[in-house]
């Protein structure tokens, strides 16, 4: 799990789930409702890729199409599940006691701990698009918890903001991990310094173009980097949206 890599958007796992048939106990919505998932790491029926990255096990680029589409309520333990809404509206219901609606820029961290259920739905006819990241916890069976926040892309233009992890204003989770986001509207250089050289960095281009060394990453391309003291990312001249996950090994 500790070799550097570049993963093109098309190299990810791809699964399409209908609200009817075999997966219908999980997938909700009208018969035409569809969940599509591009997985950076092995998840569900996708088993031929990378196992994960550091403490991350799931990195899903998901779209819920069709009103009522999404995941019916289902159980979890232990995983810290984060969702970052990019488009549309996500309705999240959990057994911690939250009914939440998230729109672009909103994100949550749901720590299933000793046991919790959740439901993820798109109640609108417009597509809902979100990134889901599942993180291993640093302790088993923690008390379940839910927290949410908002990333203001306009106010934070051309500035890296830590959304999850040990940083001012970020959602705290019980793991040595940091999720940060950069939206730039001009070409700029980001010098990212991991907490230590034992930490890994997984950078995923949501929109636009990002160059690192001689490699240019396009939309939904990603790269995993281990052992660096400093990583230089150069964003393109067009609007760029970059998600950076830093994790303990």
């Amino acid at each position: 799990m500790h070799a550097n890599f570049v993963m093109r958007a098309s190299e990810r796992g791809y699964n399409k789930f209908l609200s009817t048939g075999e997966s219908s106990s999980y997938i909700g919505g009208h018969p035409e409702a569809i969940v599509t998932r591009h997985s950076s790491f092995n998840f569900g029926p996708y088993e031929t890729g990378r196992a994960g990255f550091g403490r991350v096990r799931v990195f899903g680029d998901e779209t819920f199409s069709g009103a009522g589409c999404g995941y019916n309520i289902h159980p979890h333990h232990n995983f810290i599940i984060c969702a970052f809404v990019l488009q549309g509206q996500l309705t999240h219901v959990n057994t911690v006691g939250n009914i939440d609606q998230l729109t672009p820029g909103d994100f949550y961290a749901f720590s299933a701990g000793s046991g919790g259920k959740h439901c993820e739905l798109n109640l609108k006819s417009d597509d809902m698009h979100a990134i889901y990241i599942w993180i291993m916890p640093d302790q088993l069976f923690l008390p379940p918890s839910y927290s949410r926040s908002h990333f203001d892309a306009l106010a934070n233009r051309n500035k890296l903001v830590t959304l999850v992890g040990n940083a001012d204003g970020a959602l705290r989770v019980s793991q040595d991990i940091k999720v940060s986001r950069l939206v730039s509207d001009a070409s700029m250089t980001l010098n990212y310094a991991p907490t230590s050289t034992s930490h890994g960095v997984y950078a995923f281009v949501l929109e636009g173009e990002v160059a690192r060394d001689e490699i240019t990453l396009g939309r939904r391309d990603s790269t995993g980097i281990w052992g660096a003291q400093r990583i230089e990312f150069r964003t393109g001249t067009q609007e760029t949206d970059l998600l950076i996950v830093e994790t303990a090994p």
Partner: protein
Amino acid sequence: MIGESLKRFMCMGCGFLYDEVFGLPEHGLAPGTRWADIPEDWVCPDCGTPKHRFEMVEIPYAAGQPLPPASAQQTA
């Protein structure tokens, strides 16, 4: 296998934990049942994920966990 410490396995589909110490008596796996002795066609009782998609973890329990059986618990 004798003398090897008991291990914990986590379901990569939902986070369900199988701890060899406790087994899953409600699913017919007695405490102490080794992972290797569970049939290969066994699936996660919560989400149906196949056995080979569990990962061995060396993560400690949170304070107060795992809880004693429900019959021994007191309500706060």
